[in-house]
């Protein structure tokens, strides 16, 4: 028996009506790693992320986090355990300011009366730091709805980072980001994650940028995992090529 992984999804299945979105998917994420989840459109990657974050409940299979069975846990409890997930298209709080979007993720649960207190200098400090890392500090007081598409994407990441999760589930963090910036953002993101000791499971299409940061890769096709291993090996796998070419 090897050391248990930080996160393990065992035989997870999910159906939408007649469509099998996930078909007995088993994915494990080692502590401290950056695991890449690849696959063509519609292969079930986003569904898997949503099952992992608790937004969707699987019909079969179990999810483990730090050895604990978290299958029945709702999203907010998974967050408290240290799992943070981002959305493919940012779901910001449009009427809140940029800084408050970040603070919302940074503030712990102090209960009803506790969160009436405004003493959060330390949290505010941390929030500004993350904004600076992602070059958002210049717009900290704008309403989130006034940001550009790329900035919204960054804010989504800032929110996720500031929560200092143990496991970060990223659903296409680079989609819609200016190509010139994408490489830069990925570098900053991975650097921040390594510094904070955050384990990452990432769905991303921009393999040119993402592959070199990944430690391990899974490839999904039609709701199943068809290959896994070291990133360089996985992309050489002929079955993976066939899946991408659309057989």
């Amino acid at each position, binding site marked *: 028996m090897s050391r248990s992984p930080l996160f393990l999804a065992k035989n997870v299945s999910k159906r939408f009506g007649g469509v099998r979105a996930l078909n007995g998917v088993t994915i494990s994420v080692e502590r401290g790693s950056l695991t890449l989840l690849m696959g063509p459109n519609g292969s079930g990657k986003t569904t898997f992320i949503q099952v992992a974050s608790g937004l969707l409940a699987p019909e079969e299979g179990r999810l483990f986090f730090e050895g604990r069975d978290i299958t029945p846990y709702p999203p907010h409890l998974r967050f408290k355990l240290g799992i*943070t997930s981002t959305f493919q298209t940012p779901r910001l709080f449009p009427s809140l300011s940029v800084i408050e979007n970040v603070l919302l*993720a940074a503030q712990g649960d102090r209960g009803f009366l506790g969160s009436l207190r405004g003493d959060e200098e330390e949290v505010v*400090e941390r929030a500004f730091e993350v904004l600076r890392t992602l070059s958002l500090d210049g717009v900290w007081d704008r*309403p*989130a709805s*006034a940001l550009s598409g790329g900035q919204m994407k960054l804010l989504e990441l800032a929110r996720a980072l500031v*929560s200092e999760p143990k496991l970060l589930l990223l659903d296409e963090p680079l989609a819609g980001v200016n190509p010139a910036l994408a490489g830069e953002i990925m570098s900053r993101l991975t650097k921040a994650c390594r510094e904070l000791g955050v384990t990452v499971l990432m769905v991303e299409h921009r393999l040119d940028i993402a592959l070199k940061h990944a430690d391990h890769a899974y490839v999904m096709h039609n709701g199943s995992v068809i290959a896994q291993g070291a990133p360089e090996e996985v992309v050489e796998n002929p079955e993976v090529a066939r899946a991408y070419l659309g057989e």
Partner: protein
Amino acid sequence: MRGVEVLSFLVSTAVLYSVYLILASSMEIEYGELGLPSFAKAAFFALGAFAVGALTVRLGALLTGVALEGEFKLVSYRYATLISASVARNPALGLALFAVPLLVALPLAVLMGLAASYPALRLREDHLAIALIAFSESVRVVARNYEPLVGGTFGAGVVDFLAWLRSPWKELALLAVALAMGFGAWLVEYRISTSPLGRVLRAVRDDEVAAQAYGKDVARLRAQILALGSAMAAVAGVLYAFYAGTVNPDDFTVSRTFIVVLMVVVGGRGNPFGPPVGAAVYLLLDRGITLVKHYIPVPFDVNYLSYILMGLLLILLLLKRPGGIVPERPLLTLRRALPQRGSAAAPQQRGAEGGGPAGT
């Protein structure tokens, strides 16, 4: 004589303002901040008033050793006068008669608020609003037909808990109690709105799923807020019943809820100053028209005009200035944390509302 009239007009205006300030503050927390259309407001308001209507006469009779004879609906006013006379000699009795209905209504309102959060988790917002309105009207229909509660359509008499004071001290005492309750409720609302909790409420309102993904227990939050808002409305009901000196179930219609919603929307949803502004605008129109009604030459009851004007005002605002008179600002919850930061990371606050989209 003139001075007394002016005083009572001012006092009654201020008490009504307090009542509406409490109701609007509770609606602001629930609807303005959390986005929950708690349109059973009239029922929770009624709960407080019914506690007063059902209890002061009966409790007063019990405490003064008077036996209640006859049907409640027919005798409650007579006994209310009788017991008020006892209160005039015994201030402690007055205070007890004020406190007990409050203590009975509060836990009941909290329980009912928690119960209302059950459908709140399951229904789309507009369906929830209709369900709550139907519930609210049910409460009214039961109260107006079940006469032992508060006398049905006869209404119930209320003991004057301040009968031990003489005019003008009596009026001033009522004024003080009302203002304390009204601004107390508003302070609760202000504190919530500008605290980290208010940030969570608005986040849930903006995107429930994202709020859950960031660790917010939406179900618990809704239950807590509905319990709080309902309790506040019940307090307003207690105050209103003592002010009016009578309780009538038909006073608690959907229109009452609508007026409170109107105050919140007119004042400005999501801005803690919305309720005091909205309540003031409503009372200004309502009372203003009462004051000048003899000078408006229309061939119908002028009071209708105030309703029509309120309706028009609301629609105009929704169309031209949907944020209300004092719209929500995006930076609400940092006032206490930011000043200590110095200017290193916190640049000067530029017009946060004016900042246009930053392009693509």
